[in-house]
């Protein structure tokens, strides 16, 4: 079929016509759709990146505040512990002083009572001894 004739010219016209039609009907609309999609995607990507950056900032802020709160909580806890310890120490000391005072009072009272009991006992012993001696001697001593 190597037969070059005027078909060549018609094929040239056919190809140029096809190129024109495809350019109008397919390539340009497709490129427009692709560009629009790219712009839309690009816009959304940028918005997403912006939101991502905002979220990062909020997260960092949150982390910083959490850290500050932890430090503050640690400080308050330590302070409370220290104060509670001091309070406990004070209470213990007061209780010890009170107990000591009570013990001293009790001891003094016991000693006084012991002394009284001893005096009574001595008096009773004398009276008893006098009675026994009077009975043995048969006379008043």
């Amino acid at each position: 079929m190597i037969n070059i004739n005027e078909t060549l010219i018609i094929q040239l016209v056919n190809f140029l016509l096809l190129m024109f039609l495809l350019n109008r009907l397919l390539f340009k609309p497709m490129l427009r759709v692709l560009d629009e999609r790219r712009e839309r995607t690009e816009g959304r990507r940028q918005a997403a990146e912006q939101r991502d950056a905002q979220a990062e900032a909020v997260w960092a802020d949150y982390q910083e505040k959490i850290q500050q709160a932890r430090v503050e909580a640690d400080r308050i806890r330590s302070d409370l512990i220290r104060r509670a310890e001091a309070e406990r120490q004070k209470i213990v000391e007061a209780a010890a002083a009170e107990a000591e005072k009570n013990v001293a009072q009790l001891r003094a009272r016991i000693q006084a009572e012991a002394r009284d009991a001893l005096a009574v006992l001595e008096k009773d012993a004398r009276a008893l001894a006098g009675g026994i001696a009077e009975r043995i001697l048969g006379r008043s001593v």
Partner: protein
Amino acid sequence: MEDITRISQWVVTVAGRSVTLNATTLLMSWVVMAGLVGFAVAATRWPRAVPGPVQAAGELLVEGFRDLVNDTLGKLGPRYFSFILSLFVFILVSNWLGMIPFLEEPTKDLNTTLILGIVGFVVAHVSAVRAKGWKAYLAQYFQPVFIMFPLNVIGELAKVVSISFRLYGNIMGGSIIILVVSDLVRQLVLPPVLQAFFGFFIGTVQAFVFAMLTLTYISVAVQE
């Protein structure tokens, strides 16, 4: 078997001069053109953000070739994109047409492949003149020495011949092999594997090779 050598022709008289046209080639070319225009309309009639199968195929083709042409030609890419892609799809669908019963490939006719080669040649050289200017364009034919001029011219013309005959030979050869094999098996068994191989595989490869060679010729021509 005689079909391969028979050419149905129209002979018309234009301005008193007899004009011969290869009827099958032209009819099949119009079928290809109608198919491509139909595809173009179907792909772009209702453009959607989430494309359907036809739109997706169109987008894949257009985006792939746009990137390819832009990567090769840089900022000149958009100027040649529609030409290269038109060349590719026209040859591709022409080559695939032979797989459909009762239809033939327009690229089986040298008139088709030769004019496509000539168009590529003209585009490349016009681009070279526009990019470099006449003096620099003509000067390159005298490189590296003056006496190389005839060889350089022959080298340029050989590009048209090689690119046209490569496509024509591949498609015509495939058709001949399919015809011979079909005749040998007395048409009892259709050779679908051969049809698929020559029509689809070779057809696609040759269409791509033709488009890429034309793109390369343009790229070489416009280089400073």
